[in-house]
């Protein structure tokens, strides 16, 4: 008999670190639910389940009961939960929103989460994206989808690390997770991150 073996997209990588300058790790199996609907019609019922109102200001986020709600579009939110409770959250949402026009989709295994944090993290990420990541333009709690090198990912300024430096979460699709992981390591190489060889063997040169 084959045992079911759940593997995360970056199961072959281990946490890499350059002390306080930068560190990089995967948060495997973090629950991710897409919620779509009109905020005026589903907002209150969803807030009862989630413990926070859906953020309606663009590129914002809200923290609820052991979960976070990210603004993705004017009628679309992502609910980020701890690993393992996404199905329960989705079921409770579906019950609460019954009869209202809405959609919930469990995309936990479609995306993975890369946590990237440290003193030099903004310089690292700025090599890969055109977003303005200065703390005035991208404060705590801000969410933005953008291109990171050749792949699309959603960036969330989630908090601070143990050195009080900014900590970001990157939600990236399974198929491009290894590419982005290696590129982040390459972007942090000047700050002391070790080189990560891409699985597909590709090479690149980053503008410095």
């Amino acid at each position, binding site marked *: 008999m084959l045992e079911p073996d759940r593997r995360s997209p970056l199961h072959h990588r281990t946490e890499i670190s350059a002390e306080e300058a930068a560190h990089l790790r995967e948060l495997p199996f973090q629950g991710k639910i897409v919620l779509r609907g009109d905020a005026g019609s589903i907002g209150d019922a969803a807030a009862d389940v989630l413990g926070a109102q859906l953020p309606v200001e*663009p*590129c914002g986020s809200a923290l609820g009961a052991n979960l976070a709600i990210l603004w*993705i*579009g*004017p009628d*679309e939110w992502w609910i980020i939960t701890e690993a393992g409770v996404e199905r329960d959250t989705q079921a409770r949402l579906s019950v609460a929103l019954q009869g209202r026009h809405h959609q919930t989709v469990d995309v936990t295994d479609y995306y993975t989460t890369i946590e990237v944090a440290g003193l030099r993290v903004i310089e690292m990420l700025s090599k890969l994206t*055109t*977003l303005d990541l200065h703390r005035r333009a991208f404060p705590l709690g801000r969410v*933005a*989808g*953008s*291109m990171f090198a050749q792949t*699309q990912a959603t960036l969330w300024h989630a908090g601070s690390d143990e050195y009080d430096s900014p900590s970001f979460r990157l939600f990236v699709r399974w198929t491009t997770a290894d590419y982005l992981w290696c590129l982040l390591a390459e972007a942090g190489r000047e700050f002391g991150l070790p080189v990560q060889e891409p699985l597909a063997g590709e090479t690149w040169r980053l503008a410095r």
Partner: protein
Amino acid sequence: MFLIPCPYCGERDQSEFAYAYQAHVHRPKDPDRLTDKEWADFVFIRDNPKGVFAERWIHAAGCRRYFNLMRNTATDEILAVYRIDEPQPKVEPALPATPSGEAPIGSGNDAVKVVKPAERGS
């Protein structure tokens, strides 16, 4: 490359967006009675003006929403951005003062070649 103001997310780099062709192309109300030429016009024929053009864009890497945008195709100046459900605004073209409204420099139009003061004497 230029910056595009998404009506939801604000100003972002063009690399996050995808072009979605001419805006305000409406599906015919009575498709049964259309002639072949009218079908061809609806399906294939699009305006290609030099000057102000209403077009659709999608913020593909960001909020993934379509929106309309009015752009001067000669200068790439963005004149108005509005949601799909909003009416088309009236905009003043604000074209450069050249015969057909193209940019004076870099348009490839030799008729408006810029003459620098140093060249004037020779």
